[in-house]
């Protein structure tokens, strides 16, 4: 009886969320129909909880409870605040695309700098004609909610053969406290193109907000792509992001995710290797403290033969924080000669820190080389003593060892400048800690 009431209560709250926002959600009537359907799916499933296998370690019902109302479109004051934040988080030389509280901010973005080989539209513009972007191959409650509620995003179309020397940086900025932003973007990379995409999530004065983002990436044959995601949302924020990546043939795809913020976060990446001869390097670092909960979930689907995938994941967990890594490698029956390896390690800096590592191999082909490893442990006392005996104070000795530990994942970033940028983020996190 009580349970039923609670469910109705939650359902009604979501209904209010949707109906009150509907007037602000862009799209044709066809889009509205898709949104309604997605919303009904979400309402039926409600927030994921621990009895849903994929969400076993990240029980959003317990951790978050409710979805906050849609953030208002940013006013002049919000945009001013965001402009300052853009300056501090912009990667040197990058072409910036800025979303403030879920709405594309043209004045803060470098759209005019895009050359002819990069097509750009907003999600809002795209949805005037077509609802296709709201549909994804795999879906769950948060993805459905994103489809129902997405207010804006960027839609990039990088031409065949384009060689982009400057990274494209998508910066998500939150200025609205106790509100939600829903964004959805698409990046299409042409055959033989070379591109670097960076996503940054940061707060500009906002607290206790929620981010639900989705990114659909499609990589053409022979392309060379780096995709770096840096999530440093406010310490009391929620960030749930879903990536859907389809990789063509003979592609080099280098992905890296860094989690340094948010009270609760989950990045779920669904990467399909759909063309032969491709190499995927998918790596990440979670740096967590206090009571933060950070979940990195990667599903790598080898759908065709002769692809290589490598995953290196590191978590550093202090205080009472909780890190989750779920890595699934699927090898389809036809995907012979697959070479898939995954290594995840967690470093626990306190007795109350928690790490859940869940590597899974689902292999349906018989001529493959796949493996995974997982470890969890504390800093090595003998190494700490050696460093202290050489004059390093405790915290500095720890910091040096932690840097070395996460370095194993960070060094997988191919681009020198971005690698240094990420090392800088790790250093600042360590300074914050001491």
């Amino acid at each position, binding site marked *: 009886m009580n349970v039923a009431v609670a469910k109705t209560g939650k359902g009604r709250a979501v209904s209010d969320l949707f109906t009150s926002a509907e007037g602000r959600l862009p799209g044709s009537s066809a889009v509205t129909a898709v949104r309604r359907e997605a919303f009904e799916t979400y309402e039926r499933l409600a927030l994921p909880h621990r009895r849903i296998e994929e969400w076993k370690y990240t029980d959003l019902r317990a951790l978050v409870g409710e979805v906050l109302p849609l953030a208002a479109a940013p006013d002049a004051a919000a945009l001013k605040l965001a402009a300052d934040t853009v300056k501090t988080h912009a990667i040197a030389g990058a072409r910036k695309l800025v979303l403030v509280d879920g709405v594309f901010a043209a004045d803060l973005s470098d759209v005019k700098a895009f050359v002819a080989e990069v097509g750009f539209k907003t999600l809002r513009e795209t949805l005037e004609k077509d609802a296709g972007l709201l549909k994804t191959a795999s879906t769950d409650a948060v993805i459905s909610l994103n489809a129902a509620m997405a207010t804006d995003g960027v839609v990039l179309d990088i031409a065949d053969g384009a060689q982009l020397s400057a990274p494209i940086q998508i910066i998500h900025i939150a200025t609205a406290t106790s509100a939600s932003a829903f964004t959805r973007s698409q990046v299409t990379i042409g055959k033989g193109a070379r591109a670097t995409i960076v996503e940054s999530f940061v707060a500009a004065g906002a607290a206790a907000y929620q981010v639900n983002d989705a990114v659909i990436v499609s990589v053409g044959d022979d392309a060379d792509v780096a995709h770096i995601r840096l999530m440093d949302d406010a310490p009391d924020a929620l960030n749930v992001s879903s990536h859907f990546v389809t990789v063509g043939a003979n592609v080099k795809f280098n992905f890296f995710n860094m989690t340094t913020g948010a009270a609760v976060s989950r990045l779920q990446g669904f990467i399909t290797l759909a063309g032969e001869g491709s190499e995927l390097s998918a790596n990440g670092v979670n740096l967590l403290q206090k009571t933060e909960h950070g979940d990195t979930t990667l599903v790598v689907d080898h759908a065709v033969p002769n692809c290589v995938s490598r995953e290196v994941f590191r978590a550093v967990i202090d205080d009472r924080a909780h890190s989750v890594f779920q890595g699934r490698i699927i090898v389809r029956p036809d995907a012979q000669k697959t070479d898939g390896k995954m290594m995840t390690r967690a470093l626990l800096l306190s007795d109350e820190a928690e790490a859940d590592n869940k590597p899974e191999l689902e292999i349906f082909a018989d001529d493959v080389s796949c493996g995974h490893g997982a470890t969890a442990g504390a800093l*090595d*006392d*003998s*190494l700490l*003593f*050696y*460093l*202290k*005996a*050489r*004059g*390093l*104070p*405790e915290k*500095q*000795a720890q910091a*040096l*060892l932690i*840097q*070395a*530990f996460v*370095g*194993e994942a960070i060094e997988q970033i191919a681009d020198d400048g971005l690698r240094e940028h990420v090392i800088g983020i790790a250093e600042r996190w360590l300074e914050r800690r001491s």
Partner: protein
Amino acid sequence: MHHLNRLDTKMALLEVKDLKVRVEEREILHGLTLTVNEGEVHAIMGPNGSGKSTLSHVIAGKPGYEVTDGQILFKGEDLLEMSPDERAAKGVFLAFQYPVEIPGVATMNFLRTALNAQRKARGEDEYSTPDFLKKVREVSKSLNIPQDMLKRGVNVGFSGGEKKRNEVLQMALFEPSLCILDEMDSGLDIDALRIAADGVNALRSPGRAMVVITHYQRLLNYIVPDVVHVMSKGRVVKSGGKELALELEASGYAQFEDAA
């Protein structure tokens, strides 16, 4: 008191007084007394299990040892009150018997971080990069340490000889006033030993003392001590000049087992 000492002899750098140390409820040092003056090289010899390495670890501040009685003074200050990094900054250096490998921490970065941490603790300016590099190059050249070794992780993939040379390199860089060499000869062939010992000898100076801990007399052919102590069962049971080492080589430690 130290002024008086300086007038008649040399200043006592390290004073270990009636030191009693336990590891997990078992007493290892049973009242050890030892004084090392500046400029002197002392050898501590003794059989396995006599407490030699325990002494070196307690002086450096390694956790896991419980001092139940006695004291250790360094330049007149209570060493046991200091954390290991404070001891290092004050000038205590332990050359490890088994230097650890630290993957992912480049040797050069480690050396600079450690040196600057010590200087900062002493209120000195950090080394400038050119000065630091110049100094590292000089010292590493004299120790036959190739530059590419300094780019690798600390001791990662180093041979036994290279690890010991890396310890001597640090001694030369940090310029400690007390160097404790814990079984420096273990795992070294004669050529590697000679290079490491030459490096140590180059660091002998009137203001610096050394304590050479060894099981075998062999090392003392290369690093010739001023004073030799024999340890047995957690105490110093005999002290003498360098000839005592040769005596031990001839007659063995058995004669001291009962004396302890």
